[in-house]
């Protein structure tokens, strides 16, 4: 599992920093480093480009895991150089950006777009396998998520556009329902497809409004 990010166009980053003159850059040593979007070398390149664009870079660091609580300690440790800036540019996924913003009152800007939490399917090839819907249907779909892997989130697929194992929406991606069908067939479970999957409760997903969770400890 890895958070998939890509760098925003430099012009967009400059636009975010339009009113700022001094920037502190934070990268992330985990996902963004693996994907070459916010590791040390990308941070240094960003520093150079910002300086070329006339910004002062007061300092930078690559936090081991920007979304982690330890980010707080890292921010405290570097407080002096951070405070010399009037903004922080975070080269981490949106979790990292929001974690930094959570611990510090300064202006925080994202340098990356966060795409999805990816699963590595083949070397260097990541796919979206779950949108955290809060009401998992994998039991009836042979372990393949139809909500994110079928372009129409069909619960009763495959649609009439599934041809040759490919999705009608994009011939480069497989039809999720063909995979589901093949897996169920191999497991001798095709009869399960006769059941009409009922209309679902999207209230547990992001559609239901902001979500939160409280851990209940066993001695409570």
């Amino acid at each position, binding site marked *: 599992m890895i958070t998939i990010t890509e760098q925003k166009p430099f012009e967009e980053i400059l636009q975010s920093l339009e009113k700022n003159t001094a920037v502190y850059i934070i990268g992330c040593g985990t996902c963004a480093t693996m994907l070459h979007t916010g590791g040390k070398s990308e941070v240094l390149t960003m520093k150079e480009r910002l300086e070329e664009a006339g910004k002062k870079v007061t300092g930078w660091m690559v936090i081991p895991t920007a979304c982690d609580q330890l980010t707080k300690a890292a921010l405290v440790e570097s407080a002096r150089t951070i405070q010399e800036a009037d903004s922080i540019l975070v080269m981490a996924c949106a979790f990292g950006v929001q974690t930094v913003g959570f611990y510090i009152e300064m202006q925080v800007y994202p340098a990356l777009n966060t795409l999805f939490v990816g699963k590595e399917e083949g070397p260097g090839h990541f796919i979206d396998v779950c949108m955290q819907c809060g009401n998992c249907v994998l039991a009836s779909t042979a372990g393949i998520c139809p909500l994110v892997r079928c*372009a*129409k*989130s*069909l*619960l*009763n*697929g*495959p*649609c*009439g*556009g*599934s*041809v*040759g*194992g490919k999705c*009608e*929406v*994009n011939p480069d991606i497989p*039809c999720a329902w*063909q995979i589901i*069908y*093949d897996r169920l067939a191999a497991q001798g479970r*095709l009869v399960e*497809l*006769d059941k*009409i*999957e*009922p*209309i679902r409760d*999207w209230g547990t997903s992001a559609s239901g409004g902001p979500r939160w969770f409280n851990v209940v400890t066993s001695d409570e």
Partner: protein
Amino acid sequence: MKAGTNLEKILESGQFAVTAEVGPPKGSSPAVIRRRGELVRNSVDAVNVTDNQTAVVRMSSVAGCAILKTLGVDPIMQIVCRDRNRIAIQSDVLGAIALGIGNILCLSGDHQRFGNHPTSKSVFDIDSMQLIQALKNMRDEKQFISGEEVSGEVPIYIGAAANPFADPFEFRVARLAKKVKAGADFIQTQAVYDVDRFRRWMEAVCERGLDKEVHILAGVIPIRSVGMARYMRDYVAGVTIPDEIITRLEQAEKAKEEGVRIPLEIIEQLKEIPGLHGIHIMAVGWEDIVPEVVERAGLLPRPVL
């Protein structure tokens, strides 16, 4: 009778039905719908009005249907699941019934990626199977999806689509059975060019007895040009056009005439297929050809019930 529409009467009386399709304008003119409706009204039993087909914004299906109604045409309102959630869909269904629309065809919808608003957010709150089921529940149990009661009658003749040319082929009959179980009263299929495959599908349909439970209308598309045929073969989801048809069009002296002759030959063969109850002519943008096709296919005059 479930809705008492002309389409329902024709099909339930065991006659071979003919339907056509009208694409609403990318604008607000009712005259366009009227003109297209006038073109086909005496040649067909009911007319589909597409719902933002290929994800291109057009006048709404419900409005198009209401306009056709004023001409005395029996409209079939298409609903796709791409743009509206269950709240909007159920509300549109009630509105359609209030306007006298009785046939509703349930579809998933083409993905917006290919339309003229590719950056829009898709809905897909429910899928076409669930939509069929929801409409049946509204009609037969007087219930909304939530379980709450609908006031008044909800007379709908429920339609659904089937594509015998999609994969996996073995599942295509099972999927039809699912739609019938969900509540489909009639089915309009994807365009038939590969009659052999269609025949095999219909055999399996009849073997399961589904032809007794649902009325199947085979889709037919007149071909305007070789370019259109190639485009459909390469870019229209779920349509398969055998190479010999393309070759025939390429070699024809008058491609347009050939483009009518081919569907006519297909209709001839379709008429012989046991269990088939009608044809659905999809000549969107070429509505003027519909009367000619129906006449030359020997399907005129249309019965008056």
